[in-house]
């Protein structure tokens, strides 16, 4: 029987907080909207959906190609720098789509970087006429694809890596050629991982706001943002959110299902790691060129573009209060990651010792936050706390409480909490599940109290994982744009918001410095995290 104790109520409370955006979006149907919604329905709504889906389809195709191809080379072959590529290909995670978008525009625009390079090598000419203009939907597709393909790469590589050599040997034994082995054995068994990766890519792609907004492509996310900012119509924003949420939840279910499937494809007892094939000659060159191109296009290209601009326009070093932005980001990163991890630990521990099924359902529900796009979350967040404040003012004659949650660091942290709680909760849970229950019981029988068991047995065991999760949350917080942009306090800038604001004011050169800092910190976090993961052979 479920005990209604502190663990139950705190888990319930957290689940409720995380469910706020979903509840708000659904309840928006009971409120009136302005005329804007009707106008929108008859005009642009279809475009929003069409553009979102068009971008999605191409992003899926490109990330599939980039992710699977690079994972295949790195997992199965040994060629010059193959080990180097195996971890550097993840670095694309350090470049958010919107910063990639800045780089594309900066490179291909009239008199942009491409123009400068051509002029430097071939002398002055009107190169602008044959430099392709990559912007709009094409630009958005490229920028999002290059920034998201590591999801497919990481999951597919892991799946290839843990593929038992036994299967491949059986394939050979049954007379299959190398090509047949790949298409009939290797690829099908990696399918759940690839689908899970693509589902994540799709969710992130549909949630993207910075890139599409920068390229002025009208999608569902920009629609939500515009309804709120330009038309001050929160209910319309929430109703568009509902449409987007339907797509996202569909993808979320695919992701969960595929991950469950992927578990059956994991190696059992007879696991024999694959032996990498050593490539030489043309084949080695081909593998090298493919991996290098992907690394260059996804990471080195935007990085060098930002470095180039930062050096070319040094005046922004003085104009931008970079120390303050560093401090702001640091504060957000520290408070968010610490509070999220501590609460996740608390809830996980509660769920472990109380062994309540209801509690399990509640906590599982509370991890849905990660699926909710930042824009939806931020708009729903404002809607909820505005309504709450109005309710208090009307019924209890209280002063407006809006400022406590909207436009405050507290509100921002709360929104981050809703968005990233699942990342932390699931990360700790997966580690916690490896600690057998009899281990706790052994500790009790050796005279340890529950709290002492938690501190002496659990925490040291989870330590590495906790650090890793804090790094990942920090990475997400640094890169996060829409929530920070919408909910941040006045004049409180992070790298992401500062870069976006400059870029949207057409001051791309000024956006370079904060972008570079963002890439710098993100790269450091990714390198440390990947070292952690590799050192644990996870």
């Amino acid at each position: 029987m479920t005990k209604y104790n502190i663990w139950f109520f705190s888990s319930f409370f957290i689940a409720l907080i995380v469910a706020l955006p979903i509840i708000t979006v659904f309840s928006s149907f009971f409120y009136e909207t302005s005329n804007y919604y009707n106008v929108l329905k008859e005009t642009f709504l279809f475009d929003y959906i069409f553009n979102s889906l068009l971008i999605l389809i191409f992003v899926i195709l490109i990330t599939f190609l980039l992710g699977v191809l690079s994972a295949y080379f790195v997992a199965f072959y040994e060629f010059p720098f193959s080990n180097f590529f195996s971890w550097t290909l993840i670095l694309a995670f350090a470049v958010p789509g919107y910063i990639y978008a800045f780089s594309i525009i900066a490179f291909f625009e009239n008199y942009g970087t491409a123009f400068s390079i051509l002029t430097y090598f071939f002398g002055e000419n009107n190169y602008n006429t044959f430099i392709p203009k990559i912007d709009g939907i094409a630009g958005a597709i490229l920028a999002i694809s290059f920034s998201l393909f590591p999801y497919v790469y990481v999951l597919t590589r892991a799946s290839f890596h843990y593929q038992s050599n036994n299967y491949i040997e059986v394939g050979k034994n049954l007379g299959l050629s190398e090509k047949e082995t790949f298409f009939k054995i290797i690829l099908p068994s990696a399918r759940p991982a690839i689908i899970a990766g693509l589902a994540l890519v799709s969710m992130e792609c549909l949630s993207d706001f910075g890139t599409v907004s920068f390229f002025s492509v009208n999608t569902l996310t920009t629609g939500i943002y515009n309804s709120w900012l330009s038309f001050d119509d929160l209910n319309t924003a929430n109703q568009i959110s509902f449409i987007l949420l339907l797509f996202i939840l569909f993808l979320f279910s695919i992701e969960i299902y595929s991950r469950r499937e992927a578990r059956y494809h994991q190696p059992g007892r007879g696991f024999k790691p694959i032996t990498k094939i050593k490539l030489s000659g043309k084949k080695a060159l081909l593998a090298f060129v493919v991996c290098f191109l992907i690394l260059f296009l996804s990471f080195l290209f935007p990085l060098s573009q930002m470095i180039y601009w930062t050096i070319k326009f040094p005046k922004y070093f003085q104009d931008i209060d970079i120390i303050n932005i560093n401090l702001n980001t640091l504060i957000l990163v520290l408070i968010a990651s610490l509070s999220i991890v501590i609460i996740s630990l608390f809830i996980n521990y509660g769920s472990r010792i109380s062994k309540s099924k209801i509690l399990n359902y509640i906590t599982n529900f509370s991890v849905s936050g990660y699926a909710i796009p930042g824009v939806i979350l931020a708009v729903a967040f404002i809607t909820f706390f505005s309504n709450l404040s109005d309710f208090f003012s009307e019924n209890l004659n209280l002063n407006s409480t809006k400022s406590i949650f909207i436009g405050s660091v507290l509100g921002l942290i709360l929104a981050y909490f809703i968005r990233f709680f699942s990342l932390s909760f699931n990360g700790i849970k997966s580690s916690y599940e490896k600690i057998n229950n009899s281990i706790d019981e052994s500790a009790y029988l050796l005279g340890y109290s529950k709290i002492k068991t938690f501190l002496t047995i659990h925490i040291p065991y989870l330590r590495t994982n906790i650090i890793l999760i804090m790094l990942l949350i920090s990475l997400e917080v640094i890169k996060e744009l829409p929530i920070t942009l919408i909910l941040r306090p006045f004049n409180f800038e992070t790298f992401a918001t500062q870069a976006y604001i400059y870029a949207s004011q057409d001051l791309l050169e000024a956006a370079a410095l904060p972008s570079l800092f963002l890439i710098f910190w993100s790269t450091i976090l990714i390198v440390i995290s990947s070292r952690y993961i590799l050192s644990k052979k996870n």
Partner: protein
Amino acid sequence: MDKNFLEIQNGSFSASEKNKVNNVNLVIKNQGEIISLLGPSGIGKTTILRTIAGLQKLTNGKIILKGKTLSSNLVHVEPEERNIALSFQDNSLFPNYKVIDNINFGKKRLNGNGSSLKSNEIIKLLRIEPILEKFPHQISAGEAQRVSLARSLMSKPDLLLLDEPFSNIDQSLKDEIQVSVKKLLKRINLTTIIVTHDSYEAFSMADKCGIILDQELKQYDIPYNVHHEPNSIEVANFLNKGVFINVKVIDSECAVHRLEHPELGEIRGKLSSNFPSGSKVKLLLQPEDLIHDDQSKLKLEVVDRKFRGTNFVYTLKTNKGEHLPVFVHSHHIHQHEKNEKFGIQSPIYIDHLVCF
């Protein structure tokens, strides 16, 4: 007043609807006694141990250790306050501590039983020296079991509970470790309850043995009696050491009781329970009860022969279709093939005539 060391009064233990044992009455009179609980898998043996350790609540009844009530309808002493050690069947070592640190965790218990047991001694006895610096994931399941046992012993408990303690240990090492552990437990006078589904282990380790079947403690007696004088058909079937044949009691009043089987003839011995002359009963016939004799006139057909190392087990068939097992020493001068006739010493004499 003499106090029992451990007493379970009308104890009901339950982990799930299927996994429960009711109305258990069990007494360990003296400190240092070793008892074993034997029963098929999933019957609730582990549940009993967990409940005694305080990890689960007692559904009904009372558990009293050294005169102090640990569990009852009103009382539940928390596991960390019981000074009872439980060595789990599965790996319960702390994964982030080395083997030596795991063992030393046991030392930290403040209310130990005061025995002068040294960790070096336990480590040597359980053959743990080579793995002391390893982490739990680097050692085998059998080694983990030994480390878990060492850790429990180090905590110097009042009562030691062992859940299938030797199940993962190699056969070659098992016998030796069983002997050493038993010696040690006796030397330090540590009261122990061992749960197992292996009757040989239960009989060799314990002073007393409890058989749990059908949600009940069916029999609680010294191992010799449990084996030779099972108190119910269920216990005999569970121990699976013989067959039941239909016989008639001819004489139950004299010093030597007599039974009769239509083909085997007269069977003599001592009836374990009273049956009036003339009654028809089922007699438990164990493989060691019949003695092979090539010269005997009583011959039955061989239907099967199994080689068991030290002996053969022949299965003989009566005309009524009963299958009787017989042990024959494997050095016996000749072997009998299937369908051959096999002589049995007659009249048959069995020490304990176990009838139902």
